C-alpha cells in the first residue's frame, strides 16, 4: 500500500488519554437524547438524522478499514445488503437480536472469504475486486427471487422498538445506542495491540513484519470489522424504509460509505459521525439546488479528496493549532 502522506505540520502532542473511550459514546448518547426529547425534529428531519446514524455505524468499520489498515473497498454495499435482508426476512418472525446477529454473521463470513481471496492485491486491484463483489451482490439480490423477492424487494420489515418509543423515534434511539457501542469499540481497538498493528501495517509494512505483525491478517480483520458494522447499518436502513430492496444497496451506497471517512478524516474518531452528516444529510438539505444538487455534491467530494486529504479533521486540527497560537502568540 502506498504510504499515506500525512501532511507535514506541527501536530500537537498526542495525549491518547483513555477517557475518549467513554466520553465519545457519552456525547453521542447525550446528543441523541437531546434530539429526541428537546429538539423534537419533524418526521423528515428525524428520518434523515436516523439515516445519518445508520450510515455512521456502517462507517465506523469503514473508518477502521481505510483509516487504520489503509485498505480501500468499494463493495461494502454487499455487507449493507446482508444486514438489510437478514433484518427484513428474520426481524418479524424471529425477533430483532436473531435478525441482527444473522446479518452480522453472514456479512462476516463473506468478508473473511473475500478478504483471504483478495487482500493480497495492491490498492487499485483490490478496490476494483470489491466493486465486482458489490456488482455480483446486486445481481444476486435481483435474481434470487425465492429469497430476496427480486427487484420488488421484501416489505413489511418491522423496526426495533426501544424504550417504549414508536416509529422513527424508536429506530433513531436504537441507531444512537448502537452507534455509541460501535464508537466505544472503535476507540478500544485504536489503543489495543490489534489496532496499533493495523496502523503500523498501513504506514510501513516491512517494519510491521519485523515487529512480528502479520500484516495481511490484520487487513482481513479490518475488512471483517467493516463488514460487521455495515451489516448493522444495513439493518437500520431496512427498518427506515420498512423493507429491503436492491436499489437501497447499490454501488452508490458503497461509494457513500467510502466517501464518509475520507471527507471526515481517515482514522479520526469523529470521522464516521462528521462524514455521515456531510455525505447523507448535506444532499437532503441541498434539495433547494434541485437539478444541480448532485453536481455540487460531486464537486465538493472531488475538491476535498484532492486538496484536503486529511478531510475535516485537517481543518479542525488547523483551527485548534490556530487558536492555540493566538492564545500563546
Amino acid at each position, binding site marked *: 500500500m502506498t*504510504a499515506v502522506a*500525512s501532511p*507535514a505540520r*506541527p*501536530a500537537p*502532542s*498526542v*495525549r*491518547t488519554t483513555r477517557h475518549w*473511550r467513554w466520553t465519545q459514546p457519552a456525547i453521542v448518547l447525550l446528543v441523541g437524547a437531546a434530539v429526541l426529547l428537546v429538539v423534537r425534529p419533524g418526521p423528515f428531519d428525524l428520518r434523515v438524522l436516523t439515516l445519518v446514524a445508520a450510515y455512521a455505524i456502517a462507517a465506523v468499520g469503514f473508518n477502521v478499514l481505510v483509516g487504520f489498515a489503509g485498505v480501500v473497498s468499494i463493495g461494502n454495499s454487499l455487507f449493507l445488503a446482508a444486514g438489510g435482508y437478514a433484518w427484513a426476512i428474520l426481524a418479524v418472525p424471529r425477533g430483532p437480536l436473531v435478525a441482527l446477529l444473522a446479518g452480522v454473521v453472514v456479512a462476516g463470513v463473506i468478508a473473511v472469504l473475500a478478504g483471504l481471496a483478495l487482500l493480497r492485491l495492491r490498492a487499485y486491484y483490490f478496490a476494483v475486486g470489491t466493486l465486482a463483489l458489490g456488482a455480483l451482490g446486486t445481481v444476486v439480490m435481483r435474481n434470487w427471487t425465492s429469497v430476496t423477492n427480486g427487484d420488488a424487494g421484501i416489505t413489511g420489515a418491522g423496526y426495533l422498538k426501544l424504550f417504549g418509543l414508536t416509529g422513527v423515534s424508536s429506530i433513531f434511539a436504537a441507531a444512537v445506542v448502537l452507534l455509541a457501542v460501535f464508537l*466505544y*469499540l472503535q*476507540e*478500544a*481497538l485504536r*489503543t*489495543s*495491540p*490489534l*489496532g*496499533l*498493528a493495523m*496502523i*503500523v501495517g498501513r*504506514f*510501513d509494512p*516491512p*517494519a510491521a*513484519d*519485523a*515487529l*512480528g*505483525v*502479520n500484516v495481511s491478517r490484520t487487513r482481513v*480483520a479490518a475488512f471483517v470489522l467493516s463488514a460487521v458494522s455495515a451489516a448493522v447499518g444495513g439493518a437500520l436502513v431496512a427498518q427506515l424504509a420498512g423493507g429491503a430492496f436492491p436499489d437501497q444497496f447499490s454501488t452508490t451506497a458503497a461509494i457513500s460509505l467510502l466517501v464518509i471517512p475520507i471527507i471526515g478524516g481517515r*482514522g479520526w474518531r469523529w470521522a464516521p459521525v462528521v462524514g455521515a452528516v456531510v455525505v447523507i444529510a448535506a444532499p437532503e438539505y441541498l434539495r433547494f439546488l434541485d437539478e444541480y444538487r448532485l453536481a455540487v455534491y460531486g464537486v465538493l467530494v472531488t475538491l476535498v479528496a484532492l486538496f484536503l486529504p486529511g478531510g475535516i479533521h485537517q481543518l479542525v486540527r488547523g483551527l485548534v493549532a490556530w487558536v492555540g497560537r493566538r492564545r500563546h502568540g
Partner: protein
Amino acid sequence: MADRTTLSARGLAVAFGALRAVDGVDVEVAEGQCVGVVGANGAGKSTLLNLLSGAVRPDAGTVTVVENGRSHRLDGAPGRARARLGIVRMFQTARLVPDLSARENVELGVPAPRGAWLEALGLPTSRRRADARRRAAEDALARVGLADRAGIAAGELSLGQQRLVEMARSLASGARILLLDEPFSGLSRTAREVVASLIASLRDEGVGVLLVEHDLAQVRLLADRVVVLDAGRVLAAGPVEETLADPEVVRRYIGDIELEIGGGLDDARPAPPVVAVPVPAPLDPAPRPPVLQVRDLRVFYGAVPAVDGVDLAVAAGDGLGIVGPNGAGKSTVLRGVAGLLTATGSVRLAGERLDGTATPHRFRHGLGFVPQTLTAVVDLSVEENLRLGWLAGSRAQSFAEAMERVGDLFGEIAGRRKDPAGALSGGQRQMLAIARALVAGPRVVLLDEPTAGLAPVLVAPFADALTRLRADGVAVVVVEHNLGLVRATCSTILGLRAGAPVWSGPTERFDGAAAHEVFLAATAPARTGPSPIEPSPIEPSPIEEEHLSS
C-alpha cells in the same frame, strides 16, 4: 552454553542479477555476545542483515535459531516468525509511525500474549494487561532518557530521538538477539555515547547483538568478535584487535579510506589503491573561470537543515570530489544543485543563474545529473533511456551525433540498444545513467556515488571513462566513498560532515590528517554561522538514500 539463545547462519548467499551481494557467509551470535560486521560500502553488510532478519530470502544457506534447547530452521520463514522468537531487527533509518506517540510506538514492540486481540473489544478485564504494557513502554523510554517525551507524536521528535525511541522499543520487546543496522550513522557524538552505553548494557544483560557498522571506533568499543566483509565474502573473522590488525584486512579495507586507526597504525602508509590509472597530465596551473558556481547552498528537511551553507566551484575539464561519512549530506548537495530538492543559495552555470528554476530547465542549460539509485527507467529500452536524456538536454547536437559520441565512450551498452534497461547488470545500468547524462551534451555532470554496488573489477574502466570525460572539457562533480577513485579522477576535493563543509582544496593536499578530520571529526566542525536551531545534544542530519528513493 547450550541453553543460551544463538542465531547461526551457514553458507548464506544471495545475488541481485549479476551482482553476488552475499556469497557463502557463516556468522553466529549468541546471547550476551556482540559481533561486529564491518566492510566497505556495498560489501553486503546490510544485505546480510536482511537475510538474517527474513526481509530478503536467501538463494542458498541456512539460518537456524537455538532457543532454550529447541532449534528452529528459519531461512524460509518471514520476518514476523523471527520476531516472535526474540530476534529483533532495527533498520538503518528510524521506522516509527509519525502519528502515534513515542509511547505507542514502543508499545508496538511489547510482545502480545496469545489472547491479545480480545483487548480490542475493550472489555474492562483487559485493563490490567494494557497498563502493564504502558508501564513497560514508559520504563524503556526512561532508560533511553526520553521519559518526558512519552506523549509526543513520533513525527515531532528529531531523527536522533527517533533512533532512541526505536532502541527503547527493542528494550521493551525483551529481545534475545538484536540485529542493528548502522545504529550510529547520523548521530551526534553525545548521542553515539548514549546508544553505545545502551548496547553495552544490553550485551551485559545477556542479549546477543549483531552490530553492522562502518564506524570502526564504535566497533572496537563494543564488539567481542568482528567479521570483515568484502564484496559479499568473509575477508576475516575473529577477536576485534587481531582481525583489524591483519595486514590483508588493512590493505583491502582500511587502506581504502586511508584512515589513521587510533593507536598502533599511525604510520602505516599502504600503497595507492587498486586503481592503476595514470593521473591526468597536470593541467595549466592558471585557474580558469568556474563553469559551475554554488554559493551558500541550504537544504531543509522540515525544520531540520540537512545542508547548511555549502559553497563549491568547478571549472571546465576539472573534477571535484565530494567526500564525507555516511549521512553527511553529500547526495543532498547534488540533488539541491540539480533542483530535485527545494534549496536556497545561488547556483550559477556558465554565468546563468539556475537557482529557483525547475530541474528540466537546469538540464536544458547544460547541467547533467547521474542519480545513485533508480539510475534508469527499467521499462524503457537502453536507446529509449538515452533518447529521454537527449530530450531533456540542450539538444545542441542531433540525437544521432550525440549517440555517436557516447557510443565510443561506453561501447558495451551501445551493443544492447534494444534491450530493456531492467535487464542490464548493476554496472551496465550505471554506465547507461552516465551515458544518458552525456547524450544531453552537458557542460557539467553531477555523479552521485557512481561505484556504489559496482563490482570492484568495474571500478577501473569507470574511472577511465570519467577521465576521458574531463578531457572532453566537461566539468565533473562526483560524490564517492571510494577515495582511491576520487584521488584518481578529481582535481579538487570538498569534505562534508553533518551537512557542513569541513575541508576543501586540491586533491594532492588531501592526506591522512584531512581524512581523519573529515571522517572521524577529531576536531569540532568549523561551523560558518550560528546554527538556526538551538544546539540540541543530537545534531540532526538526513539519511538521504533511504528517504529519497522511496
